[in-house]
């Protein structure tokens, strides 16, 4: 599929989805002369509904995870995203609340973090779990180019329901080769469960991913942890559409 076709499809899809959004951002409103209306065959988004953790049992009381989102902050000139394959549509709607068994909390807050680079380009690894999710420069940890990973030690095995993470949300970006794994092995050699993988060509060597690329934004990326029991959470990435670096603002792990 050519980039041109991909772009057209993405734009059409985005236009169609924006029609269902509760409020269309002013910077997406058509300029004079008015843009044409989206093609009738473009996909239509469904109204967001609360999502249940896939491991939830019928007799367990569910409630939204206690997720607090940072302030949205897209500034500057957004780079074009039209050449990124396997990119999920930007639906411009709030993500539905994620339901998990009552009592889950962010287990990652202020827990030890290690990574492929002990000394990042900017920030310290501990900032990834300090509760600061803002997009501003002082909140972002930057790791170098090529394959990078960070790992949170939850201290003991927990039942995990959702992992939410923010790479960067000052401008719209797509990070590549995002893989989320959990394990009770600190070396991630045995007992590894992969919860998310969009490394479609297996450049990390962790297996071919089938998940889609996505645009990082203030609501972060939420991955269903499916009640997996684990002590360690590891996230991989390998640059983004704007530069070669991997960034992490915050990682939250909801479980009990």
């Amino acid at each position, binding site marked *: 599929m050519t980039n041109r076709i991909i772009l057209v499809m993405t734009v059409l899809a985005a236009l169609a989805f924006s029609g269902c959004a509760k409020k269309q951002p002013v910077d997406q409103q058509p*300029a004079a002369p008015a843009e044409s209306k989206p093609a009738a065959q473009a996909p239509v988004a469904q109204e967001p509904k609360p999502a249940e953790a896939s491991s939830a049992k019928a007799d367990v009381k569910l409630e939204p995870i206690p997720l607090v989102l940072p302030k949205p902050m897209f*500034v500057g000139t957004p780079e*074009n995203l*039209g050449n990124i394959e396997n990119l999920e549509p930007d639906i411009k709607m709030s993500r539905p609340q994620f339901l998990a068994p009552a009592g889950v909390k962010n287990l990652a807050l202020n827990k030890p973090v290690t990574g492929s680079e002990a000394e990042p380009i900017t920030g310290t690894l501990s900032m990834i779990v300090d509760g600061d999710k803002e997009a501003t420069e002082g*909140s972002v940890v930057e790791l170098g180019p*090529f394959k990078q990973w960070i790992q949170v030690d939850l201290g003991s095995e927990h039942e995990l329901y959702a992992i939410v993470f923010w790479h960067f949300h000052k401008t719209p970006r797509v990070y590549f080769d995002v893989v989320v794994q959990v394990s009770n092995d600190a070396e991630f050699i045995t007992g590894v469960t992969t919860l998310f993988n969009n490394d479609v060509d297996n450049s990390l060597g962790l297996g071919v991913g089938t998940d889609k690329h996505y645009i990082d934004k203030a609501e972060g990326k939420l991955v269903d942890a499916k009640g997996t029991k684990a002590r360690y959470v590891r996230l991989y990435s390998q640059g983004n559409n704007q530069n070669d670096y991997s960034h992490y603002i915050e990682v939250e792990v909801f479980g009990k």
Partner: protein
Amino acid sequence: MFKKLSRREFLQTTAAIGAGLYVSGKAQGADAPAKDVINIALLGAGAQGQVLMDAIIMKRDPAIRFLAVCDIWGVNRDKVQKRLKRYSKSGFRDTAYTDYKEMLDTEKDLDAVIVATPDFWHAEHTVACLEKGLHVYCEKEMSNTIEGAKKMVEAQKASGKQLQIGHQRRSNPRYRYCYDKLLQDAHILGRITTINGQWNRSKDSCQDNILREGMAPIEEAILNKYGFKNMQQFLNWRWYKGLGGGPIVDLGSHQIDIYSWFLGCNPKSVIASGGVDYWKDHEWYDSVMAIYEYETKNGPVRAFYQTLTTNSANGYFECFMGDEGTMLISEASNRGSVYREGWVQEAKWDPWVAKGYIEKAKGTKVAEDKDKEAVLDVRESIPAAEYKLTVELTDPYHQPHLMNFFNAIRGTEKLNCPAQVGYETAVTVLKVNEAVSKATRLDFKEEEYKV
């Protein structure tokens, strides 16, 4: 344009270098033909400098390598130095300087410098580099003063080196296609009579930069030595007179430059309104509206431009209006269309569709025969039919312009925005602030555009 190394190929190649599998320990640049190697330094490591550096790196040209970085603020200097260090196996060096003179005196292997310092430093930095025999890519605005811009043109002429000014749309393949194919070849708009353009940003996008926790400020003596009163000025220099030019220069300059390029001439007059209407402690105008008058070979053109810092409605675009059609273009690739005036027969544009210059937008309502009587109704026009542009830029915005600069050094291309062109745009844009302050129409004299 030569085939670029894909991201995957680059990662595989770099992994091979790291594993000692690549060409016998040679650095990235060492593998390229010597005549193609260009050693560069980054002078000004702030946000824009980093964007330019990233765009260069992501081109994966094995013969372009950074050797040094210079910035007076340790936070940005250290960040870029650490980034460069990560590419040491690709032939990059990470030498960092605070003083640009020390860098130019020390770094003997440089071929070119990327200047991304605040506007009021452009002239001194660019002239010094040219006098050292180095090629220069200088961010726009060329200078915050006409005198500074003039010195840059003169220094370029004296040195014979390449001086590219960072109006990157001039190298954007989409803009070049609009100019070459739609305007010069197809004359698709008929006679252009009017231009309308804008760059509106939300209040949230225009907040002052602040010193974040953990960021060490620059010593006051250093700040003063380099022309800043304090860190507030350093972090927000674009708002201060004598340092920058405000949004009309930061943003408007890119787009007004396109007005003159596409029309093939410079404006003859400007009127403007603006003020410090909303933001506190700023010196330059936060909202500006300007109207230029051009006298083109085809007749007069009036060109409106506005930039707002309190409302982002409709974002940024340039809209060229002729008696046969309208072309709406933006640096953002998701915006770009040509609209055929309702009275123009569809058959007249069919050849351009057939040649691939434009393509009919899906879902566009084309005027039906029954609507044609509306042509006679002067109160309402038939809706214009939309056609999409067929060329887009998917690389980083600045990359084609930077590569045009490097290829000009190699002798394979001519600069798309040489010093004289950048100078004429500086004359055109800086006049707006003068028109606002004088609250009167200002005429451009032909000699103002000459150096």
